[in-house]
């Protein structure tokens, strides 16, 4: 059964793409969670739908259009959060919904194009092409290089931004930078699980890893590992039972997280007695 699945080119592509996405979302998801940016990341994910709509309307490659648009969205989000401490959720909510509306309207206006909306909302990992994989590899390479190059600063800003500022780290720049990297990994993750479930991929493996890690780097590594595991198991289940791949992957992760939380509750309960 597994061997049979592995024989198909589309399934091999799905595994490779799943692995690339998992590594990216493990690394960036860790940064998002420790910086408490989950809401912002969700905003970027939904806003990027505007990029998908525009790309389809103007005939630009969709993946590329979504990347540019969500990068712009992330810079806008960073600008808003840095400059408006109050009314933050109103502004973010506005960007979030306007982005989605732009996407829907431009797809409406695209003549004679019967776009499969579901594939962007829920992912289309089984339809990943060779070019998609090249593109994802390039995005992942950018993410990994940036994180290694700026690791100390990213750590300092994430742990204690006020103190980092004192040490001469440009906190506003790195805040924006983390959101831009988030945009890249979100675009990758949309391919795997769709924009509705992106946040799950960027948080579930991370919540598991944060308990088991003693450093940010270790947390990134473990998150990626869990994410790969969930993706592979999810992909096989979805193949076997003919289910939507993205949702299956998230359900696998969610089940593991729930079991872990129950185990943790029980063990601390018995330890404390």
């Amino acid at each position, binding site marked *: 059964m597994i061997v049979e699945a592995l024989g198909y080119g589309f399934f091999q592509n799905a595994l490779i793409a799943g692995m690339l996405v998992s590594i990216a979302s493990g690394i960036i998801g860790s940064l998002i969670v*420790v910086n*408490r940016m989950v809401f912002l990341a969700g905003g970027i994910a939904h806003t990027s739908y505007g990029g998908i709509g525009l790309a389809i309307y103007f005939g630009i490659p969709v993946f590329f259009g979504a990347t540019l648009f969500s990068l712009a969205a992330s810079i806008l989000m960073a600008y808003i959060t840095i400059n408006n401490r109050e009314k933050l959720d109103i502004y973010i909510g506005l960007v979030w919904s306007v982005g989605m509306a732009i996407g829907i309207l431009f797809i409406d206006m695209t003549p004679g194009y019967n776009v499969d909306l579901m594939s962007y909302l829920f992912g289309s990992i089984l339809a990943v092409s060779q070019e998609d994989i090249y593109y994802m590899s390039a995005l992942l390479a950018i993410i990994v290089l940036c994180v*290694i*190059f*700026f*690791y*100390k*600063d990213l*750590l*300092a800003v*994430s*742990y*204690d931004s*006020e*103190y*980092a*500022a*004192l*040490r*001469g780290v440009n906190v506003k720049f790195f805040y924006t930078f983390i959101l831009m990297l988030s945009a890249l990994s979100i675009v990758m993750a949309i391919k795997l699980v769709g924009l509705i479930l992106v946040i799950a991929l960027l948080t579930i493996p991370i919540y598991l890893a*944060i308990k088991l*890690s*003693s*450093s*940010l*780097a*270790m*947390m990134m590594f473990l998150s990626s590992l869990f994410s790969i595991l969930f993706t592979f198991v999810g992909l096989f289940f979805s193949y076997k039972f003919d289910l939507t791949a993205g949702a299956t992957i998230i359900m696998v992760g969610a089940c593991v997280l729930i079991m872990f939380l129950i185990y943790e509750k029980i063990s601390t309960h018995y330890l404390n007695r």
Partner: protein
Amino acid sequence: MDAINIKNLTCFYDEQKVLEDINLDVKERDFLAIIGPNGGGKSTLLKSILGIITPKKGSIKIFGKENLKSLEMIGYVPQNTNINIDFPIRVIDVVMMGHVDTCAHEGAVSKNRFFNIFSKPHEIQCALGSLKEVGMEAYAYKKIATLSGGQRQRVMIARALCSNPKILLLDEPTSNIDAEGQRSIYELLKKLNEHITIVVISHDISVILEYANKVVHINKRLVFHDMQKNINKVTKHEGHFCEVELMQMLGGQK
């Protein structure tokens, strides 16, 4: 020479005047305590000494030098701070964030900041040294999330000590710590005071009167107090007293 010399300092947040015409000298090896009501501008004063906030008017000199925007001379322990307690990080890695390469000059700093996920031996040595000073060397490789509030505060002090500062600024270092833990932190500060000038913000008046040699009261403006006189007053006073009572005693405007 004064460790810190503040002249006619006025600070604003946007339109709001937070500090007005502050004059303050801190001598070398002073133990200065800053008291005052919430929102009185205590943290703002520390932040302007650190150079985080640019004053509207006036000057701040650190050992005679103005515009010293470096943590080399000054160690800083922030108030509570919005640090995520669950952050996966070991004690020693936190302390190392306070390390300043003393041989690195401006421009050279950026060179060795990038591409180093792994810490250098001299950084580790420095961090272990500061942990030893605060009595926490046994916890160096523990996760910070497993420490108690008092232990975590010691780690924050160790981080500030990691750059070998001549002045240590602490913003309410014992606000979430029980009486015993509080006393042991002040004992530590007293020991550090043998070679470091200490400035501490606190609401724990009774402890301050015991450890500090100078007290200032800040509520937008500053009132300076001669410690010796106050200690006499307090010892005469005996028993318990609340902050308001003391404020009146010290003549600060409320």
